[in-house]
Each structure stands twice: as structure tokens, then as C-alpha cells.
């Protein structure tokens, strides 16, 4: 246009267009390139991750008997957002046979963000859990009437036998700690809390699967996302074959009824634990499902401490059973020979006295047979004093240290770290330092620690260690760390002792004599060629603990056993018969001594022991 005085305004108008588009491009750049939050928000909008729970691995005993399996349970979840105004609460309550008040209370709980931190109207919230099939049957049929309600299948543990609660352990809901430590878990997941369930959690739990679904703006599911590319199928847990012989386990549990105590049986050649019993115990079914926390708290309050696995955690003075180790160590360290004689009384043996009447002096085999206290005190003393005391007690202390190492090589005074038993105590074989602290370096002599010679005093062992000790003697010089997984990989944990085989033969012979002529003779089954050693441990908690270790048959041991009955008195009276019956059961497959079984099983030594 000619002479258009406003010609240049076209640039203003073009400029406005350019600026607008530029501003929008900058905004787009911010939203689509810089701001990272929208990606997650979009996924939260559209994607629902549904967890698929794998079935947990089953647990079998050594003969393939099913011990632990899964039972289906159901969980009702609700998504508040999908529950419209017309929602039929009354009908829903009727389906589940709950009252309106219970319903309202539960809803209030779900919505309370203090109790339920992850609450959202958009995601399914657990309304009721651990329901049986019959509880949800009515609802299942009418599910279409209740939008927002979902029934999810989970599994709970179930048990074939009411036995081996400590060994098997239990499964419970994970806590915040577990979630923080292992990203695999999320709130509401279950994991093994103790026992084998805990040790083999990784193997048993399998792998959760996930299904990524798309949800539209009205909350309706619209099929899988990206044709299921991100989905993962659940991988079922791997079954666990244990070393337990469930019938042996049950027999031992039956025999220990009404008493506080434990019994451990090991196959010496393999270190496989055949039975691991701690009493009082409970029916594993009580720690499952809805009742779990209630029952757990009750068990926790029980004064007899049933939750403690006494077989691996309780520590006792070994008493006379320790004489077998004493004999082996003294033979090896040159303190005695099988022919060495010690008098049973008189000044030489003072101040230790004998509790049994037998001829004197005695050699080693007879000393074991008769459990002669003075003999082992003298042998212990002679080993420790072999080099004299030396300057500053040096020579004596060195000898003690050697003795202690020999003793510990039986697996005492320490945990079996290469085992798969999760709850263990280490027991105690006092160190040189310990006595130095108590008496000063030069303040202690053989006589000071004389109680050790007969397994009293500061020595503490667990029943598991006792059984392992029996297995070591049966093996004549080695043991394989006791374990519960019947898997060859466990057999490599072999520990060889620096004690000559011939010494073991001597001691084994002594232990055989115990069962023929000695303290165990009343409970031996001659055809089974049992070997054993009784113990009666004095302790500060009341009556003596009855202890027995043994194995059979002597020539080719198939089973090694240790039994402890707390505050029961003589080992020969209460522990030996239990062990003897266990050996019979395992070796012959039956237990013929029904009367004995009835007598032992029927005797209540501790009134407060309760079977849960």
C-alpha cells in the first residue's frame, strides 16, 4: 500500500505471533525435557502393577515325607475411589458376616493415615485378610455387585505334623527393617521369620511376578501394558529337603513331654541332623494366619520360654559326658596312656571324690565305665602340669591353652558358622585370659580349675555341641558341621581333629562298656551295640540336669545322640532312656519298648510345661 504510515505495525503484529509461539516452545521444553515429574505421574495414572505371589517352596524330611506345604487363603481389598454412592454396604457386610459397626471401624482404620501410611483412594487397600475359602464363598459369587472389591489369593503355611516347630520356623509379615534391607519386599509381604524358613528364605520364597496393567480414567482395567513386555511371571520357590527323620523327631518330642529339655540326633558320617528337639514346643499351626501375633505373644509370655530353641541355644555344664573329651585330650597330649592307673580315693585324688563305688585304682576304660571323678582330675592335672609351672606360670598357661584348643576342636565353645542353623549359642570353654582376669596371671593352678576336669565349672555346651561331640567320637576323629539341608553341598564342611585314631578306639571301648557294665546298662539294647556316657550336671538352677551322649552301633555308627533333661536328676535315669529309645527307633525303624516309652513320656517333671 502506498503511503501507508502504519506499515511498520505489521512487524509488531508478526512479532506478537513469534513471541507467543516462542514462549510456548520454551514452556514445552520445560514440561517435556526439563521437568522429570510428569513421567511418573503419568505412570501412576495409567499403570497398575499387580503382584503375582509365587507359591513358597515345600519342606520335606529326609525320607521324602511332606512336612510343610501351602494352604490357600484369601484377602479382600477395596479401592475406595471405585466404590460409588450407591454401594450396598449392608449386602456386603451380610456376605462376610460382619456387622456394620465392624465395617465402619475397619474403613476408619484404612483411612487413618497414621496407621496406614500408604493410604490412597486409588489403590486397593486390604480390607480383610487371611480368610478361608468358606469365608469368601458368598462374596465371590456376588462380587460383581460390589465395584472396587477384589479378592486376592495368597498362601499360608500348613503342616503335616505337629512337630519340629523350632527347626522349621515360621513365616510372618515383613517389618520395616526387612523392607529397608531387601528391596524385594514390600509392605504386606511374608518372609521366614525363624528356623529353616528364615535360613532358606531366598530359596523358599521364589520370585514374585508382576503384571503391568493399564487403567483408564474411570479405573477400569484395559488390558496389559505394551503387550505384557514388562510383565514377569512368578517363579515358585524351590522345595527344601531336610535331613530330619520326622518319626524320630516326633518320638523324641513325645518322650520329652512334660519336661524341659532337648534331644539332638546326628548321622555321624554326614553331619546330617536327624532330630532336633527342644521342649517345651508348640504346634507349628498356631503361628500361622490370623492367630499368629496373638499366639506369638502368648508364647513370648510363657515362663518356660518355649520360643527358645534349647537344642541349639541353651547352655549347660556337660558334666561327666565331658570325660570322653578329657580322656581323648589327655591321651593325645601324653598325660596318660590307656594303662595309666589312678586311685579313686586317698590324698592323690583329693579334693575330687568319686560318686560311684568301684575298685581302685582304675585304668582309663574302667574309669569311663564307672565315671570315676578322681581319675579324670588326676589326668587333667598331669597334662596341665606336664612342663611344670615355669616362670610367671608361663608353662602351665601354655599347656592350658593347648588343652583348650584340643577341646574346642570338637566344636565346643563356638558356633557352627558353616552350618545352616540360624539360632545357635556358642557355649563356653574359658580362655587363659579369662582365668588371668579372675585370678591374675600367676594366681591360678591346676587345682584352681579342677572342676573343668569333670565338665563342671565354667564349661558350657549346647545340646547340639554334645551331639556333635558324640558324632566326632563315633567318627574317630572328624566331624561334619551338623546341618539340616539334605544337600551334598553341606558335606564339605569337614573338620578333622588332631587326635590319633587309636585313642578314639580306647574311648569308644570305654563308652561301650558304659552301656554294658556302667551307668547306662539299664537302658541298653544289646543287639544294637550302643556306646554312651551319662552326665549329671550340677547347676545353680535347682536339681541336676540329666545328660546323655551316645551312638550306635559301635562298629559302624549310624546315629549319634545327645539328650539333656533340665533339673531331672541322674543322667542315667532320664536322659539315657530317651537317647536309647531314639537310637532303637532310628536303627530298627520301630520302638519295641512300649512300657518304657509310656513311663518316660507320661512322667511330668515340670508342671508348668505346656504343649501349645
Amino acid at each position, binding site marked *: 500500500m502506498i503511503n501507508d504510515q502504519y506499515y511498520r505495525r505489521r512487524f509488531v503484529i508478526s512479532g506478537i505471533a*513469534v513471541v507467543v509461539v516462542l514462549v510456548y516452545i520454551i514452556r514445552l521444553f520445560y514440561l517435556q525435557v526439563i521437568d522429570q515429574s510428569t513421567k511418573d505421574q503419568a505412570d501412576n495414572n495409567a499403570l497398575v502393577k499387580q503382584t503375582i505371589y509365587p507359591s513358597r517352596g515345600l519342606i520335606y524330611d529326609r525320607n521324602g515325607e511332606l512336612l510343610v506345604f501351602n494352604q490357600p487363603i484369601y484377602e479382600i481389598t477395596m479401592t475406595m475411589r471405585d466404590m460409588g454412592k450407591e454401594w450396598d454396604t449392608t449386602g456386603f457386610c451380610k456376605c462376610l458376616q460382619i456387622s456394620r459397626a465392624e465395617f465402619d471401624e475397619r474403613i476408619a482404620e484404612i483411612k487413618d493415615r497414621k496407621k496406614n501410611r500408604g493410604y490412597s483412594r486409588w489403590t486397593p487397600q486390604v480390607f480383610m485378610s487371611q480368610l478361608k475359602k468358606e469365608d469368601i464363598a458368598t462374596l465371590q459369587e456376588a462380587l460383581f455387585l460390589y465395584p472396587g472389591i477384589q479378592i486376592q489369593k495368597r498362601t499360608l503355611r500348613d503342616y503335616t505334623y505337629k512337630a519340629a516347630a523350632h527347626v522349621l520356623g515360621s513365616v510372618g509379615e515383613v517389618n520395616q527393617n526387612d523392607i529397608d534391607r531387601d528391596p524385594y519386599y514390600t509392605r504386606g509381604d511374608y518372609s521366614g521369620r525363624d528356623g529353616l524358613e528364615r535360613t532358606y528364605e531366598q530359596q523358599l520364597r521364589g520370585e514374585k511376578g508382576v503384571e503391568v496393567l493399564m487403567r483408564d480414567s474411570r479405573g477400569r482395567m484395559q488390558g496389559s501394558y505394551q503387550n505384557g513386555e514388562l510383565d514377569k511371571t512368578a517363579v515358585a520357590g524351590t522345595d527344601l529337603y531336610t535331613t530330619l527323620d520326622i518319626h524320630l523327631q516326633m518320638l523324641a518330642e513325645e518322650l520329652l513331654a512334660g519336661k524341659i529339655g532337648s534331644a539332638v540326633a546326628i548321622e555321624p558320617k554326614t553331619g546330617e541332623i536327624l532330630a532336633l528337639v527342644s521342649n517345651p514346643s508348640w504346634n507349628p499351626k498356631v503361628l500361622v494366619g490370623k492367630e499368629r501375633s496373638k499366639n506369638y505373644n502368648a508364647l513370648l509370655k510363657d515362663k518356660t520360654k518355649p520360643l527358645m530353641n534349647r537344642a541349639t541355644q541353651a547352655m549347660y555344664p556337660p558334666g561327666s559326658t565331658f570325660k570322653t573329651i578329657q580322656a581323648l585330650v589327655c591321651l593325645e597330649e601324653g598325660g596318660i596312656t590307656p594303662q595309666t592307673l589312678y586311685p579313686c580315693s586317698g590324698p592323690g585324688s583329693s579334693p575330687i571324690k568319686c560318686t560311684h563305688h568301684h575298685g581302685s585304682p582304675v585304668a582309663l576304660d574302667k574309669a569311663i565305665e564307672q565315671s570315676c571323678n578322681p581319675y579324670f582330675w588326676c589326668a587333667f592335672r598331669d597334662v596341665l602340669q606336664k612342663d611344670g609351672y615355669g616362670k610367671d606360670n608361663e608353662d602351665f598357661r601354655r599347656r592350658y591353652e593347648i588343652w583348650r584348643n584340643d577341646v574346642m576342636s570338637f566344636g565346643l565353645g563356638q558356633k557352627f558358622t558353616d552350618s545352616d542353623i540360624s539360632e545357635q549359642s556358642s557355649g563356653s570353654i574359658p580362655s587363659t585370659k579369662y582365668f588371668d582376669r579372675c585370678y591374675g596371671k600367676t594366681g591360678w593352678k591346676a587345682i584352681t580349675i579342677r572342676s573343668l576336669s569333670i565338665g563342671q565349672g565354667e564349661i558350657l555346651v549346647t545340646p547340639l555341641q554334645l551331639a556333635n561331640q558324640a558324632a566326632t567320637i563315633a567318627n574317630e576323629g572328624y566331624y561334619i558341621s551338623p546341618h539340616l539341608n539334605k544337600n551334598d553341598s553341606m558335606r564339605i564342611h569337614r573338620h578333622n581333629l588332631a587326635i590319633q585314631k587309636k585313642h578314639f578306639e580306647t574311648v569308644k571301648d570305654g563308652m561301650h562298656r558304659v552301656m554294658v557294665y556302667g551307668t547306662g546298662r539299664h537302658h541298653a539294647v544289646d543287639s544294637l551295640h550302643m556306646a554312651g556316657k551319662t552326665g549329671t550336671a550340677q547347676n545353680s538352677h535347682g536339681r541336676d540336669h540329666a545328660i546323655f551322649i551316645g551312638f550306635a552301633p559301635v562298629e559302624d555308627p549310624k546315629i549319634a545322640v545327645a539328650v539333656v533333661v533340665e533339673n531331672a536328676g541322674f543322667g542315667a535315669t532320664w536322659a539315657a532312656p530317651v537317647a536309647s529309645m531314639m537310637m532303637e527307633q532310628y536303627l530298627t525303624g520301630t520302638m519295641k519298648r512300649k512300657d518304657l516309652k509310656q513311663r518316660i513320656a507320661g512322667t511330668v517333671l515340670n508342671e508348668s510345661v505346656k504343649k501349645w
Partner: protein
Amino acid sequence: MRASRNGNILQHVDWVTIGLFLALTIFGWLNIYGASYTFDQTSIFDFSNRAGKQFMWIIGSVVLGGILLLIDYKTYDVLAYVAYGAMVLLLLATPFLAHDIKGSLSWISLGPVSLQPAEFAKCIVALAVAKYMGRYDYKIRTWRDLIVPFALIGVPALIIMVLQKETGSALVFAAFLLVFYRQGMSGYVLWIGVAAVALFIISIRWGGLALPWGTGSVGILTCMLLLTSIEIYFICKEHKMRWQPLILTGSVIMIYAICLLVNIWVSVPFDWVSMGVVVALVIYNIFVSLYWRKYMLLIVAAFTLFCIGYTHACDFVFQKVLQPHQRIRIEVLLGMKEDPAGAGYNVNQARIAVGSGRFFGKGYLNGTQTKLQFVPEQDTDFIFCTVGEEWGFVGSFGVLLVYLLFILRLIEIAERQRNVSTQIYAYAVASIFLFHLTINVGMVLGLLPVIGIPLPFFSYGGSSLWGFTLLLFILLRLDAARMEQLR
């Protein structure tokens, strides 16, 4: 004769614009298919879904475009006023014929389809305005010359806003301000518009925020300081005296300094002080303008006084005049309220959809937010979300760029006209498209309040597509005839 003239038209038609038009329309159609795409989706040509229907509208639009090109260009000029009168009558009648769609009374049902007369009003108003302002004796000399043009756009705007309750469609007529500006309307009118928006936002957003010292609100004080600066600027501009800005600015600063000092002992009402300063400047301004006979300054003084009132009226307008849903949209935009489940839902979901597209987008028909219908109105007003989500930054950038080219091309066309009337019409077309683009995309990107107007060629809908086709192809017809018109 006739054949050769048609040949001429094909030669002279602006094919660049037609190309851009087709590109935008077809890309828009693909995105409508994407936006309405669900899982049991039928073909893009299936008439039971919106993409299929839009295809029908597009065919219709191309046919309509062709017909428009064939009509004699003089027809548009001849019929402009008649069409305008008929259109006003139709707009008046619409609310009585219409049935209520989400509170709007702007749709007339014609059998299976509904039409929105307001979409066609833009084109007819543009023709009428072009005809009036294109007269050979018309020139914008005083404000009186703008009365008729303002009336021409004001009447339909008011009818649409008040009777049809379609605020968005009515606001589109504001685009004509750019046309008037190009034809000689003072640039201050645009600035007044900017100032009005700024004062409105400031007084609404910070009007309730108390000052940290003294009494008064941050919003009012900021508005008054703005007015103070405007006053000083104009007084100094008209006088061209070097010392005056210093003296005026200095005294204002002095006054505020004294107030701050006094405020240590006595609480100073800064609302009143700042208003007093502005009023004092206005009085000085009036005195000066009368003395020097610079009557322009009187207008500035009147404007300033008006602004003082306006600032205080904003709150009233906001609370009482605006509809509650409009108020809440503005509050959400200004970040005064967060309501992601209610009024802020659209905006928030739009932001998520666009943002989650990231740089390259999720791919055509792969947008989860789109497919799962998280953004309401995503095939009409919020169609740009689909572009953002499925085509990413690259695609959105491309679409905006094509739009910019399209609008710049329209301005180019406007500028090459020899006929003033055609030029005015061309600017009206360019401005209307620019306005739609600005409001619609600004809304989707969360920069402007939610105002329901379509994105030209993208949003689903026959009325809007045909309305824009009418607007565009009349221009192309007039442009093709530019050689024949010599005046």
C-alpha cells in the same frame, strides 16, 4: 470466458496457505483418531467414531473451500452487511432454539448434526468490519471513527457472552483489536489492555497479602507504584524537560522514605499513601496539561483515575461478576488454589499428558494418558495434549512452527493487498487464528486460564472446521482477485 477465469483462480490462489491448511487439518485428523483411540478401536474411517466423522467434515470443508473459490469475489463485499444483519438475528435466535450443552446455549440441532452459529459469526463480522473500514473515505482520526467498528464486533460478542453463555467464543472478537491497531488505532489501546490484565492479576493474586510493614496489601501497593510510574512517564514524555523525571521520581521516593521512617513509630496505611501519591501526580498532571495546553495528558489523567477505581473494583469483579467456575479456573492458574481433583483436574492432567511425552513422544496411538482418557475434552479443546504426548517435544514444536508459518503467511497475504478492505479482512483472519492458537495452547500448557475455544483444524468439530474454512477460503478467493482490484 468462465473457464479461463477459473484457470486464473487456480493460478492466483495462494497454494502455500492451502498446503499449510491441509497439513494442519490432516495432522489434526490423525490426532483426533489418536485421542479417541481406545482398545476396541475401529478404523479411522469408521463414521461411528469421531475420527471418521471428522473425515466427513474435512471432505465437506474441502468441497466448501472449492465452492468459495468459485464464487465471484465481489459477492462477499456486496453481501457483507446483509449477512451481518442475518447473523445477528441468528445469534439472537440461537438461545431459544438451542438445547443446553454443559451450560452453553450455542448449539442448534439440525437432524443428526449440531451447528454452532458463533463459529461462523467470526467470518461474517470480519467481512462487515472490512467493508466498513475499507471505504475509501474511512480513516481512523479520532476515537469517534472507532465507534462503529467496535459496535460491529461488540454486538455479536455481547450476544454470545450474555445470551449464549459462551465466554470463550465471545472473547475471540478481542482479536479485532489487532486489526484496528494495524489500521491506525493508537497503540496505547493495546497497552491499556496489557495494563488492565496486569493490574487485574496483581490485585487478585496479591490483593489479600498484607505488607510486612505498616498496613495495606502488597497487591494494591504494587498497582499504585505501577500507576505512579505511568504518570511520571507521560508527564515527562509530554514536557521533554530533563530535570522533571528526577524531581518527580525523587519526591515520590522521599515520600515513601518518610513513610517508612514514620512507620517505625506509627503504622502507616500504605494503601492510602500510595493512592495519595498517584492522585497528587494526577492533579499536577491536570494542572500542567491545562497550563501547557497538552490535552493528551488529560486522557492519561482520566485513565489513571479510572485505573485507581479499576484496581479496587477488580476484587469485586472477581468475586461477584465472574461465574464461580471461571473464578476457580483463574485461582488455579495463579496458583492460589490447588484442586487436582476438581477445577484443576484438566490442567493438571494436560500437564502430565504433555510432559510425559518427553522429547520424542510415546509414538502414534501409544499415549497412555490419551488412550485411557485421563484428559477430558482431549479430542476437542485439549487436542494439543495428544500431540504433546504421542509426538513429544519434536512434534509439538513442529506443529507450533507450522502454525507460526501459517499466521505469518496470512500477514504476508494481508500486506500484499491493494484493496484496503481485503487487507483488513486478511488481518482479521490472521488475528483470529493467532488468538485461537494463543488461548488454546496457552490453556493446555497451563499458562492461561481454561477458556473453551478450539484449536483451528485440530479440534474435533464440524462447525469450527467449517467456520475456519469459510474464514480462510474467502480470504484466498479475495487474494486471488488482488490483481483485478485497483483502487
